[in-house]
């Protein structure tokens, strides 16, 4: 089997002795055009890009990402648009891994097979489905693997060690560790030291798996996670789009600056 772009990216980051920077933006935020522009412009600093497909009942998202989601929905962004944005991005940046993230109902309505076909056509590299935990996701994850799409398994502070072992065994090239009990964008209520302890527990189970850390990571705290395999920043970026719009500034250049700053902190 050929090595995935996600694996390659982690390899390259390791060579540079730094974690991968993973950004999260909402498809169509604040417009379809700007959403693509933001992806294209942050791609020079971001190693992996997460793009969310919209759902209007997001049970695990905090305020900032909800704002972005509702903003985009009210602009009429559809799943089809999301695939279009992904496709245009991948055509321009064929070597940058793009991961779609969202809730299962959209996949269910689209049909699992059809959804994966659309992912393939848009050259999407991976998928995160927030409300499809293990073992319920086993079948779908297998389908993804067959199509060479990475299904990203999630782990959290509430995941027992036994469960972790099983999930890791079924995982693909990337695992996502949720730093704390929170929705996205919550204040970091656990010390980075404690988070890294848990991260190390995961690495002990299988040191070859790439494990990224997300939830509550900002410009302030990102430095503390320099020794992880990757860090995800989402709410901070969505917040910047909201701030830019409120101040009548260009969200594309502002977000780009934020991501540059984040990157410099982990170099």
């Amino acid at each position, binding site marked *: 089997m050929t090595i995935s772009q996600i694996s390659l990216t982690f390899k390259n980051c390791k060579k540079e002795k730094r974690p991968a920077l993973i950004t999260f933006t909402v498809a169509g935020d604040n417009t379809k055009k700007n959403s693509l522009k933001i992806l294209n412009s942050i791609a020079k600093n971001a190693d992996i890009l997460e793009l969310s497909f*919209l759902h209007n009942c997001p049970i695990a998202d905090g305020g900032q990402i909800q704002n972005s989601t509702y903003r985009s*929905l009210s602009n009429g962004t559809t799943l089809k648009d999301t695939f279009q944005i992904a496709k245009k991005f991948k055509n321009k940046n064929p070597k940058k891994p793009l991961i779609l993230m969202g809730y299962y109902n*959209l996949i*269910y*309505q689209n049909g699992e097979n059809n959804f994966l076909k659309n992912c393939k056509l848009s050259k999407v590299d991976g998928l995160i489905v927030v409300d499809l935990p293990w073992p319920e996701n086993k079948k779908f994850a297998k389908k993804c693997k067959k199509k060479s799409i990475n299904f990203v398994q999630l782990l*959290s502070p509430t995941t027992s060690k036994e469960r972790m072992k099983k999930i890791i065994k079924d995982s693909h090239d990337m695992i996502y560790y949720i730093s704390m009990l929170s929705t996205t964008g919550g204040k970091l209520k656990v010390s980075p030291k404690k988070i890294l302890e848990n991260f190390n527990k995961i690495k002990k189970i299988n040191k070859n798996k790439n494990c990224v850390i997300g939830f509550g990571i900002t410009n302030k705290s990102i430095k503390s996670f320099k020794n992880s395999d990757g860090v995800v920043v989402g709410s901070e970026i969505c917040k910047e789009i909201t701030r830019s719009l409120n101040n009548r500034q260009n969200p594309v250049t502002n977000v780009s600056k934020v991501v540059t700053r984040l990157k410099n902190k982990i170099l």
Partner: protein
Amino acid sequence: MKIKKNTPLIDQHDKFGFWGGKFGGNFIPETLKKPVEDLEILFKKLRKNKKFIKERDYYFKNWLGSPTRFIKLHNLTNYLGGAQIWAKVVSDLNGGAHKSLNATVHCLIAKRSGKKSVCGDTGAGYAGKMLSMAAKKFGLKCKIFMGAKDIKRQKPNCDAMKKNGAEIVPVYTGSQTLVDAVSECMRYWVSNCDTTHMCVGSTVGPNIFVKICGWSTSQISRELSVQIKKEFGRIPKKVKLLNCVGGGSSSFGFWNEFMHYNKKQVEFIGIEAGGPKKSKRHAAPLTYGSKIGILHGAAQYVNQNFEGQIEETESISAGLDYPGVSPLHCFLKDTKRARYTAATDEEALSAYKLVTKHENLSPSLEPSHAFAEAIKLAPKLSKDTIIIVNSCGDAHKDRDILKQRLGKF
């Protein structure tokens, strides 16, 4: 798809939590897997624990005032002609609705789990009011999530929650009604599941919450079964059990004990909220053939658009104003054990008017939907048909809406 005999309906799901192989389940974030599993284990233990059952029954009887009345509505029956109309006056319960059954059980469970606080969602404000009442009784801290639109239209219940010392968190996202309140409550639980017990206000949400709620509200039909037998000497040949359906907690509880009767003998009729007559929006996914989708952790029939965005609902009754419906009801629909229909806002209002004119009973807007169907059906049926309506809520909370729409309360 078939209903099994000799197994409670709440237990007829597969190992992934699906009823009929496709309704329910656990579509939850990884963080909630553990707390949900812990709750499953605890509930499994407690429902077999004699001491726990005794405690539940004690509070149902001595604190909530169970059993509630089962009465014949003589005047209404005479006025309409045809079938006999009876009511199970569940609104007699302490707090004024069936929601206190679920709230009490959840607080008893929370105590056993060692958690110091509870959080819950509410639409009509009843689930919130009862949870705040039970939390106060059992010494738990309480946070209630409620849509901003509902806070405005159900003020009396909000006042009660505050009086009970609960914190009401207004939810401003989306349609600002029950659906957003449930989402926000689940978000809160994701962040606080180590210290807080969540009480889902109806037979919706991840599998275990459907089960706990159904188990709690089944008290209604346990009482009713005894009362019918006492009144008629047996279960009569033609019984129709009418109940409004939003999330579906009162109707499931009203029907559960009669599940294994032939539907020709004991028919279940669920009445959903059809919304305003002139509006296309409704809260009746079963009646109007909505597709299966995932909402709040469970697969169910739900109002949604082609790509899976949940659609806004509209109903005069906040308690029924929910785009989805319990997986148990989806199962009952597909197995054809129950049938479902809808009543419009206007029909519910005129039913309220007619019932209050003839009877000393003041059903809230939710059961008024069920009365609307009873009023439609009764004249067409024979005198030996027994229609029983679950009058599951009291109209006190609706006084502002009733004043506005009918000019008086």
